[in-house]
């Protein structure tokens, strides 16, 4: 099947800054795709390349198999929900939503019917006559979403759409976006720096760093088997094990990662294992996170809060099952 969006060796340089550097990427039709990374990692530039606000310095971009390089944004059947929503302050909500249809020459009646329908879809029925200035942040966000969806785009781009909302609203919107995407079957491409958001919403996640994609995979893959130290560090709370440590305790000289829940803490007298000293305890509810100093590393383990807990300053030994150690692709 033709991918919805396809990047082939796409680069975007601003002077000497490589915002996007030789990125290969295929986004499957109908999937909810997240681009995750810290600020300046190139994820937003990638989104803007799809929307057409940026042009690649080199490489090829296809949207449903059609060449998109050199095609202006207004000729792409792709719509964007902007981070600051970018609603038009001089138009009321209905006219904002109908804007795309208006510039395409759709008649007034059909426009207003489509706008009403889109507003109902985002749960803002009857808000058409208001001005954007009279809406709350969450409502503006819904209007921005309706304004994009009313055009029936083949791909919907969302640039940190939940960043400005408070926690409760954000969780609610996450669910709504997810169900909306399932319902409409439109390909969603979602940019975020929040790994929790990416992992909970997306079908697949691309982790960006320094203009490159570190790893693409399902949330489970990214979480359980991070490809590089960066991914392990950025996405999860995994312990990163350097090659020396790995050689001594896991039998191969490679970078590795180990989930905190897979580390067991034993009394020093228990025998073999990694000698360590307990640095601190953090009560997390069901589990307690134990910070440990071992071999010059800071490791974290999560143990059942109900069991026996060590105390800070205790000397202990750590054991783990070698099968639980994930070996990363990164060269030693």
């Amino acid at each position: 099947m033709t991918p919805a969006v396809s990047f082939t060796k796409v680069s975007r340089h601003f002077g000497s800054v490589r915002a996007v550097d030789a990125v290969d990427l295929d986004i499957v039709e109908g999937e909810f795709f997240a681009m995750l990374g810290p600020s300046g990692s190139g994820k937003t530039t990638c989104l803007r390349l799809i929307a057409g606000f940026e042009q690649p310095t080199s490489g090829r971009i296809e949207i449903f198999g059609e060449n998109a390089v050199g095609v202006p944004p207004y000729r792409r059947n792709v719509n964007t929900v902007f981070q600051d929503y970018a609603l038009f302050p001089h138009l009321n909500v209905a006219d904002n939503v109908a804007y795309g249809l208006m510039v395409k020459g759709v008649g007034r009646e059909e426009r207003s019917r489509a706008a009403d329908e889109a507003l109902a879809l985002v749960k803002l029925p009857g808000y058409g006559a208001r001005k954007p200035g009279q809406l709350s942040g969450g409502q503006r966000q819904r209007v921005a979403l309706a304004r994009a969806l009313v055009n029936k785009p083949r791909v919907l781009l969302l640039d940190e759409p939940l960043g400005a909302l408070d926690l409760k609203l954000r969780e609610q919107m996450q669910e709504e976006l997810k169900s909306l995407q399932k319902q409409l079957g439109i390909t969603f491409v979602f940019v975020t720096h929040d790994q929790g958001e990416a992992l909970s919403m997306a079908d697949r996640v691309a982790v960006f760093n320094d203009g490159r994609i570190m790893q693409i995979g399902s949330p489970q893959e990214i979480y359980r088997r991070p490809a590089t130290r960066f991914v392990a560090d950025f996405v999860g709370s995994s312990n990163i094990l350097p090659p020396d440590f790995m050689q001594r305790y896991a039998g191969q000289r490679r970078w590795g990662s180990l989930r905190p829940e897979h580390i067991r803490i034993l009394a020093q007298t228990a025998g073999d294992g990694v000698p360590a000293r307990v640095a601190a305890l953090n009560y997390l509810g069901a589990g307690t996170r134990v910070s440990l100093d071992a071999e010059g590393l800071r490791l974290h383990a999560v143990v059942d809060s109900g069991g026996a807990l060590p105390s800070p300053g205790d000397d202990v030994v750590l054991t783990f099952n070698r099968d639980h150690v994930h070996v990363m692709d990164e060269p030693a």
Partner: protein
Amino acid sequence: MPSDRTQRAPIGLKIAAAAGLLFLHLPILIIFVYAFTTEEKSYVWPPPGFTTQWFAVTWNRPDVWEALTLSVQVAAISTVIALILGTLCAAAISGTSFFGRETISLLVILPIALPGIITGIALRSAFSLAEIPFSFWTIVLGHATFCVVVVYNNAVARFRRTSGSMIEASMDLGADAFQTFRHVILPNIGTALVAGGMLAFALSFDEVIVTTFTAGQQQTLPIWMLEELVRPRQRPVTNVVAMVVVIVTFLPILAAYYLTRDGDQIAGSGK
């Protein structure tokens, strides 16, 4: 300097501020009184009597009408040119960041930052070097040059508020450059342009220093007034003209204020 505590101003400050404002307004009010005086040979105060006859006399003076017509024409055309040049400049400056933008801003502000006499004599000597005879258009040339800045100042502030993402949003929704200009940019900067245009009109309508260098034999209303100031001939007519000029310039200033008062920068604060 907003303060959370409701404080009363010290009485001394109140008096000083009120006195300062009175100092600004009383002389203008005096003009209004003189327009009705019956005295025609001197500036005697208090006026010996009041009459409205000078309004009729002024109304029937062809030289006043000619000067007024010329001033309005010059101001109108200068305003149109200033609107075009100022808007282009503001759009280019705010849309992108390029190395020369500081220079461009300076270039726009210079004609009003340098004393008017310098602009005037520079234009005059350039006209004489290039052997351009004085005409209606030499006046317009000078006026448009210093009017650009008021349009530019108003437009630049509004362009800044019309965020780049709004233009991108428009294009994203399928509007090409012209549609974006018509449906998004123009409605957002419209009132700022009207305000800038009104201020430019007021500025041009009132200008005298540059005009004395670029006008040749033609008389704009301010030049007519200047003649009367240097060699008073018809004092009552001058009084009436002065009062009318005050009223006529107040209107665009008030209109510009009401058009832009909700914005981040109110028109006219940078004459």
